[in-house]
């Protein structure tokens, strides 16, 4: 059975099915880091997505990208591992069309999972950060079912 | 005295002249590795070319000599970081998933009428992998 976690933003919660076939090391690092509570803000360069910086812990010790992508499909959770120019990891979650970019252009991230159906409230909460500003994202292990 | 390589692809023969003056170390290593037998497959990122991987020549530390990004038609290109040798029949560029544009060594050029050989390379897209053998041609 696929691993999953629960994500909460501004009171809206949803499950994320993790893709440990595509990104085994990144998924393992994410699970090891739980629970997480991080400041979340709207992306400046990457479109309809939000991001949170993750300093310390297993995610900040990640090495290379796994199954790298540029496009972050709506509902997808992705991780940018540390790089020499950007120590610490970055967690991203898209609510619409999104593409990971920096000021100097397109870059790649590791896709680690996607929101399960019925996450409309969470997607709306993410979208709202564009107007309402910074909020908090909580990630924790999902209770079994 | 030019180093020549005889290439037999699914029964069709071509000869490539190696660019020893402009890529001396790459030619030296490649020459020492011959003969090579492999399966030629169509490239998946680089366009109109076929490729083989020569694992014993893969070396991430090897500098790229006679650098090109766009493969010359009828050219033999080599990417040392992958040990990848490509035979270009049309428009092609050194590319992979991480690099929309990269560098390769222009290692050699097919001599004479290589049309039948390049048609076989092109056919790997529709027909799948084909056996290929590279061996030293008599030095002349």
């Amino acid at each position, binding site marked *: 059975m696929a691993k999953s976690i629960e994500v909460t933003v501004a009171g809206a919660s949803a499950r994320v099915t993790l893709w440990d076939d595509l990104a085994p090391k990144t998924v393992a690092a994410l699970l090891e880091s739980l629970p997480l509570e991080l400041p979340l803000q709207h992306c400046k360069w990457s479109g309809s997505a939000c991001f949170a910086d993750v300093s310390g812990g297993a995610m900040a010790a990640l090495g290379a990208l796994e199954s790298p992508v540029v496009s972050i499909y709506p509902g997808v959770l992705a991780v940018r591992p540390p790089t020499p120019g950007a120590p610490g990891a970055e967690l991203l979650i898209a609510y619409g*069309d999104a593409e990971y970019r920096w000021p100097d252009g397109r870059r790649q991230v590791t896709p680690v999972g996607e929101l399960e159906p019925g996450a409309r409230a969470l997607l709306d909460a993410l979208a709202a950060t564009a107007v309402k500003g910074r909020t908090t994202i909580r990630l924790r292990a999902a209770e079994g079912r | 005295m030019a180093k020549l390589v005889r290439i037999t692809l699914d029964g069709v023969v071509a000869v490539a002249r190696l660019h020893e003056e402009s890529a001396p170390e790459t030619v030296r290593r490649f020459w020492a590795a011959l003969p090579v037998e492999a399966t030629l497959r169509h490239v998946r990122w680089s366009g109109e070319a076929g490729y083989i991987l020569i694992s014993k020549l893969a070396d991430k530390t090897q500098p790229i000599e006679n650098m090109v990004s766009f493969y010359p038609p009828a050219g033999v290109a080599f990417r040392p970081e992958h040990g990848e040798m490509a035979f270009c029949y049309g428009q092609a560029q050194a590319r992979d998933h991480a690099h929309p544009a990269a560098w390769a060594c222009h290692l050699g050029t097919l001599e004479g009428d290589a049309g039948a050989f390049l048609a076989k390379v092109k056919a790997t897209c529709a027909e799948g992998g084909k056996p290929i053998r590279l061996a030293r041609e008599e030095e002349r």
Partner: protein
Amino acid sequence: MKKIEIEVGGVVAEAELVEDRAPRTTASFWDALPLTARLTHTKWSGRAAEFTVERLRSVTGLEHRVCSIYPGTLIARPDKGEVLVAYGAAEYRSVLGVEYGTRIARLVRNQAAMLAVLDRMHDEGDKTITIRRIG
């Protein structure tokens, strides 16, 4: 959400159309079904195969633009009448470099077997793809 059945090399998988994100393109694709086409490995876009759907040329512009093609995802480029399906790392590219397509569908059942048969195209060459509506 509309579903389709995809058959390649004796393997049958099910996919759902991303109608909410790409209504015009998925509608045009749905109208083109059933279809049988030659499936060819891509030369520029990585671990993906492509086939032609001429009917898509009636769609103007892109919806839900993506360049990365996740494994098991289908994207369309209507102006070229082209659809790609990825079995591994893939990014929509041409001789000009990175381009964009409309994401239209994703495999939801028997994905692993379908990706395996597509993976074999690198060694085996072209195959035939058949796509039918479900329901």
